[in-house]
């Protein structure tokens, strides 16, 4: 890792006043890193995201920003509260990414306009830029939201389950984008619910569960043993997966 460190978490305890969700969260994130956060429901994935966004102070431990806390942290949440019938166009949704830099009287300037156009191009939404949201498919909407994330132009990007209800083609296109962000020196933190090929695009993993956290590279961190220990998999699921896997191997031999 030659890239400078963007963020390091030192023995963080996360949660709310009366409730510690997870303790001893320690990890490091350099520019260009893609970190996968994996864990069962209630393991503290969303709590971690809220803490990183600054909405929730850690209960203990320290969150260090060696390069100073970025002014903007790009964030793409789950779409549970998203209103996909709101009467605006894809272009306007993307422009929303620039909102924080604009006061109420400012217009979007040329540089910002160029950033929006480039984001629409790179996410493949340039052709549908003038379509209203309600006409989009789930995949098109997620591309548009990735465009908004790019317009935010942030050194740190947080994605909360970005591939839920997304088809394989779109997932592949979005993963290519994430790779390109990392190549640009941005750091990405992705909350993932399912273990999948997405992990091949991550160079580190944080496993949360049972109030504990484990950090390392994905291959060594997300082993069946650890996944059971952090309650991501039950013992019977793990055994079932192992037998399935052995069965396949035997079939091939």
């Amino acid at each position, binding site marked *: 890792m030659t890239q400078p460190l963007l963020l390091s978490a030192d023995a963080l305890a996360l949660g709310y006043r009366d409730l510690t969700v997870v303790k001893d969260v320690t990890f490091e994130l350099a520019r260009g890193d893609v970190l996968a956060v994996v864990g069962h429901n209630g393991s503290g994935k969303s709590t971690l995201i809220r803490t990183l966004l600054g909405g929730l102070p850690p209960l203990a431990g320290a969150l260090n920003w060696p390069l100073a806390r970025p002014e903007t942290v790009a964030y793409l*949440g789950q779409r549970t509260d998203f209103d996909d019938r709101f009467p605006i166009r894809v272009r306007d949704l993307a422009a*929303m990414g620039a909102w924080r830099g604009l006061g109420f009287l400012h217009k979007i300037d040329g540089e910002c306009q160029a950033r929006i156009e480039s984001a629409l191009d790179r996410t493949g939404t340039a052709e549908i830029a003038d379509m209203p949201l309600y006409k989009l*498919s789930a995949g098109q909407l997620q591309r548009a939201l990735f465009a908004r994330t790019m317009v935010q132009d942030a050194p740190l990007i947080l994605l909360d389950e970005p591939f839920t209800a997304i088809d394989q083609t779109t997932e592949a296109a979005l993963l290519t984008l994430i790779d390109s962000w990392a190549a640009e020196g941005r750091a990405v933190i992705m909350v993932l619910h399912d273990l999948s090929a997405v992990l091949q695009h991550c160079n580190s993993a944080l496993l949360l569960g049972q109030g504990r956290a484990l950090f390392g590279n994905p291959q060594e961190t997300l082993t069946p043993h650890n996944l059971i220990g952090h309650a991501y998999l039950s013992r019977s699921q793990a055994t079932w997966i192992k037998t399935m896997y052995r069965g396949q191997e035997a079939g091939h031999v």
Partner: protein
Amino acid sequence: MFEWFEYAFMVRALVATSVMSFAIAPVGAFLVLRRLSLAGEAMAHAIVPGIVIAFVLSGLSVVSMVIGGLTAGIAVAALTSLLARMTIIREDASLASLYLIALALGIFVLSAAGSAVPLKSFLFGSILGIDNETLVLIGVTATITLVSFAIILRPLITNTIDPLFHESQTKYPGLATQWFMFLVVLNLLGAFKALGTLMAVGLMILPATAARYWASTITSYLLTTFGFALLSCWIGLIVSFHLPDVPSGPAIVLVAAVFFLISLIFAPQGFHPAAWLNPACRWQQSDGDTNVNSETGEKIHEKTF
């Protein structure tokens, strides 16, 4: 045909409702967009005890009516969000409980005090009630509303589309939305004299729902809502002028209802007979993966004919 133009009270009413439309249209539009149409109705009832108590204490003074109404409206709104957060009852049921208490209290006090104002004009409005003070109130309300919208429009749009994203980008995510609820109460008070408490919310919601069937950008939506509100007021006032027993409120709201029906039938995002025959073309309740066609990945609630 144009004899109404010679009556000063009609000209007054036209000017008052035109100015009112400027402010009430964006407020109604965002009530609809934020899925708060029924909360708007509830707030219209919630301000009643404040207005009534002010009326009993100091007669038909606009200033005391505004203070009373704002106090009652803000108290109900604040208590609602407190109950929703601190108890098991959710926001809608908390609001319903509180506005029902407020409405009953208001009518109880009005009757017990032996009011000089007939209940009918209290509930349904009267164009004769628009005095100079009311004109000033409407002007001030419209000014505050339009200036506020210039400031909170971007955060309000962002919060409405994607509240999670909005919270991540600002330190005070509740500021714009709480100010918006204040504008709702203020506009209900501004429209109270001309339309009455029950009908004011009608002019807020119906032009906004009618326009929703036509518009696919926020700018065209706000402009169409304003157009419908303005036309409803003008036509409604003239109808009420020719039928002296009909109060202005219901006349205006019924005209808005005609616009709603026309939009429902003819607008691109309105009702389409084919939706009855083909369930795949219907707008669906839930969002997310339930309405995604598994083979093509297309959303099946999209209307394509």
